């Protein structure tokens, strides 16, 4: 049986959510505290963010587990709690989800380089992602969302890790930068090779997130579309972070300017659309309206 979310994407544009970390900071998450810890210590705040995104129109929210691999949590001495914190992350999103809406288990990069650029071995990454995926699956996610990947080898390790513990679909977003010759990750992975490899690994959807503004995302989605028949995910940044004279953090792309490019992103071929850094429930609400207009 095809999972319901993969049925839904055949019929219409599916709306994801926006940023999580900044929403938690607005609720008091302090510097140096890993957001995943709040799945155990401040569950009501995490649930509240998910509820705000569902209320704004998200069909799918992603769990508060971006840095939840044991290897990443080890920086805070929390590696032994990876399973528990990921399962809690999934449960909180599940509890906030109205009937017929979905939960994606967020799996962000580990932050160490694989050999030969760094000390890490692919097998360690596979195991770390597997442990995270086990917690997320047991907590009740509908899909895994491997996100913000800058190294295709790590993305594939995450996919294999997830697949080793669960049969749930795996989505992957990679972070591309815009260059005169096209779109490439930090490690130089081009769009076409990235999606081809991901497709071969059996992912159910692939796409791009972070770094690119919604204006730049249009071209990146076009490049993705010409390289794959998979459903495409697009989650652009609202520009780059800047600190105003009052010390308040802002982003270079305003809500109006961000949403202006949503129709073009959909027309370019994105099926799953949502936000990344600098977005919030207000962005998602405006995107929901733009998608509605696009539909009618």
């Amino acid at each position, binding site marked *: 049986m095809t999972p319901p979310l993969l049925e839904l994407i055949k019929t219409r544009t599916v709306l994801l959510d926006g940023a999580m970390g900044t929403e938690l900071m607005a609720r008091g998450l302090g*510097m140096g505290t890993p957001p995943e810890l709040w799945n155990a210590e401040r569950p009501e705040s995490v649930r509240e963010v998910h509820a705000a995104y569902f209320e704004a129109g998200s069909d799918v929210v992603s769990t508060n587990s971006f840095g939840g691999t044991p290897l990443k949590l080890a920086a805070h001495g929390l590696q032994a709690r990876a399973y528990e914190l990921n399962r809690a992350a999934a449960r909180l999103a599940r509890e906030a989800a109205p009937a017929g809406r979905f939960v994606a288990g967020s799996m962000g990069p580990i932050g160490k380089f694989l050999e030969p650029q760094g000390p890490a071995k692919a097998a360690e990454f596979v195991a770390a992602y597997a442990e995270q995926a086990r917690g997320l699956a047991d907590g009740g996610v509908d899909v895994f969302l491997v996100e913000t990947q800058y190294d295709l080898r790590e993305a594939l390790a995450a996919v294999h890790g997830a697949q080793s513990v669960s049969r749930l679909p795996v989505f992957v977003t990679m972070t591309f930068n815009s260059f005169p010759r096209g779109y490439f*990750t*930090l490690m*130089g992975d081009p769009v076409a090779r990235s999606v081809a490899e991901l497709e071969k690994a059996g992912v159910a959807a692939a796409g791009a997130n972070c770094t690119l503004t919604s204006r730049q995302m249009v071209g990146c989605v076009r490049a993705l579309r010409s390289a794959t028949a998979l459903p495409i995910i697009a989650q652009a940044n609202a520009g*780059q972070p800047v600190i105003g004279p009052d010390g308040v953090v802002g982003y270079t792309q305003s809500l109006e300017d961000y949403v202006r490019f949503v129709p073009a992103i959909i027309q370019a071929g994105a099926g799953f659309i949502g936000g990344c850094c600098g977005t919030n429930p207000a962005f998602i609400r405006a995107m929901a309206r733009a998608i509605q207009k696009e539909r009618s």
Partner: protein
Amino acid sequence: MTKNELFPKMNEAIVAGDRAAARSLAEEAARSGLDLLEVIDQGYLPGIQRVGELWEQGEYFLPELISSAEAMKAAMSVIDPELHRMHVGSRMGGKVVIGTVEGDIHDIGKNLVASMLQAGGFEVIDLGADVKLERFIETAEAAGAGMICLSALLTTTMMNQRRLIGLLRDRGLRDKYKVLVGGAPASRKWAEEIGADGYAENAVAAVKLAKSMAGRP
């Protein structure tokens, strides 16, 4: 081989990220009794510069940058002890203390800047990530460094770049150090606002900036 034959080969070895070649060419230069400072300056450093250009043009990516920095390190592992024997310092750039500020565990960008600075002829003391602000100052003071480089990837932790400059001022040490800032949320404007000496957008720009701060071409 004469230096006219060696230098282009050294350049090539760096651009290709070929550690073995970079090392054996350095050995050959040492055996032939060439001026090793000239070897660094005209044999290897132009290669690092070329790599920077290729990176800026979007032809090279992070893996190539790292390979080239590693090749440079391999060459220097031969040259440094030789120069040391002759009581000559190879690090014309001086000492640099670098780290990611307190509260921030992101170190990819910082690591890259550290290895490119090293490849560019600086003696780099890398304190790692989540570094207490006090430690930057203590280390710089103890080592006699001239530059402190601060990385921050989060909008929350970049405030610590401002704090470090405040700490230096409080101790009357502000003019003793050049303070450079970097990281995704930082910008030239931010550097100006907090009174830093400079900002670099990426590792290649950081080397250029550090060189100009150190008064090198």
